[in-house]
């Protein structure tokens, strides 16, 4: 039955949630850190994602998240953080919400959790780019 699909336990997402490796935060004021925040107002979930970028190579060296929400939201944030680490900032947004949702086998009703993590990532990338561009301009 459909009900079953909302169960988190034993699933890929529950696994990722329980083993989350990228929880934490970095100084938001740091020049090499981009911080993004996204909310799902209908659900009340909040995800914050931070990336630390190597200014020379443009490679994301580290990614950290904090999230308030269900296990799916936390797992999504952790997976996004995981997948962008080691990537070039320029290609970070290729880690799409659909990719995350599929990898975590999110039930349809929880797809928004992957979108939330992606939105936070996009905001983090934008934040870093804004900072960087501001630095270049000055």
């Amino acid at each position: 039955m459909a009900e079953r699909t909302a169960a988190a336990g034993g699933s890929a997402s529950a696994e990722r949630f329980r083993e989350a490796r990228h929880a934490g935060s970095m100084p938001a004021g740091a020049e090499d850190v981009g911080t993004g925040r996204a909310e799902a107002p209908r659900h009340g979930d909040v995800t914050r994602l931070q990336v630390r970028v190597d200014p020379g190579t443009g490679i994301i060296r580290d990614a950290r998240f904090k999230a308030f929400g269900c296990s799916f939201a936390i797992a999504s944030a952790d997976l996004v953080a995981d997948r962008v680490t080691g990537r070039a900032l320029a290609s970070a947004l290729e880690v799409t919400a659909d990719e995350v949702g599929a990898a975590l086998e999110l039930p349809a009703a929880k797809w928004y959790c992957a979108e939330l993590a992606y939105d936070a990532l996009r905001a983090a990338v934008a934040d870093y780019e804004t900072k960087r561009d501001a630095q270049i301009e000055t």
Partner: protein
Amino acid sequence: MPLLPATGADSIMVTLPIYMDSHATTRLDPRVLDAMLPYLGEHFGNASSRTHPFGWKAAEAVDAARHQVAELIGARSSEIVFTSGATESNNLAIKGVIAAHDARPCHLVTVVTEHHAVLDPCQRVEAEQGCAVTRLGVDSDGLIDPNELTAAITPHTALVSVMAANNEIGVRQPIAAIAEAARARGVPVHTDAAQAVGRVPIDVGALGVDLASVSAHKMHGPKGVGALYVRRSRRAKLVPIIDGGGHEYGLRSGTLNVPGIVGFGKAAALASVEMDATVRQIARLRDRLWEQLRSRLHGVQLNGSRTHRLPHNLNVSFAHVDGQALLTALDDVAVSSGSACASATDEPSYVVQALGATRERARASVRFGLSRETTEAEVDYVADKVARVVMRLRDLSPLADESTDAGCDPAVEEWLTGG
């Protein structure tokens, strides 16, 4: 870093996983299974087969079980109608009374915190039979005000339905006072006693109700069987929802679930004998769990009245924590949550919200359901594990960061109360 670092010694005294979700269902007592087995074996007759010993044996067993169930709630055997569970019993009571109530307009009174098995039939008669429904609110303890009930009754009121004990927050409504108020106005009273019967003493005579729903699987009996108590004197008129053959005094047809009924009877008999002792033991363990959680964590809040409460229920909101996330982290403890993610709907617990709590507090609520099987070691294990998971999830929460500190009372209080 994994969400919850393993600790050393805490799983030694308990068998995992620990079941602490006894509002959802309870373990079938092995003694109940033993009573059922002959009826799942050689005594397989249909209780309506009146012409041979297979049938007589089944009918006798049903009679005995009917007596046992009646005795548990202070009823007579002839007042027990066996059903497939409390959901059906509630539907029979509500739809049955409304269908039998010829006069229109028609009105019924219930409470916002009722189980869906009451709310949904009420909605059905409202939508399809034009029966007006008043849904009484509750105070911050989860209790209704009997005066409000009295005021809600009109000359058209056909039924009052108020649950004996809530399935999420364990709050016990003042049924005797409610029934007295309703009966004074000549209105029959139904109570959904699925969570109460077998766990606390329930006497339909003392309560003064006309109809009461009971479920076997909430009291260590089998799933798929329940009963509707139907008072004989001043019997409420009732149209059956399942017709066909006239079983159960014509109120509920269908081949009787003999093994299930036998198990229900046995569970009732065990509860009759053992309840006094187990109630005290369970309440003590429940209080121990609450004390441990409170001593280890800031920002915990009890949902529902402290005193008007089932002994085995504890419902707590943990500030800055999503209940479903907490449950998923508690991989070896079975509890449930008022979080929307844990339910079929998109909305966190309507019961906790009815207390005046925010959606956040509702989604942060966790329901612990102890039982007569719960041990002290289990309570200690659960308290420790929950405390550590809560701290870890708060650590993870951007909200806690953004306000001041998850451990800081003012912010947490504000969060919990919706400031």
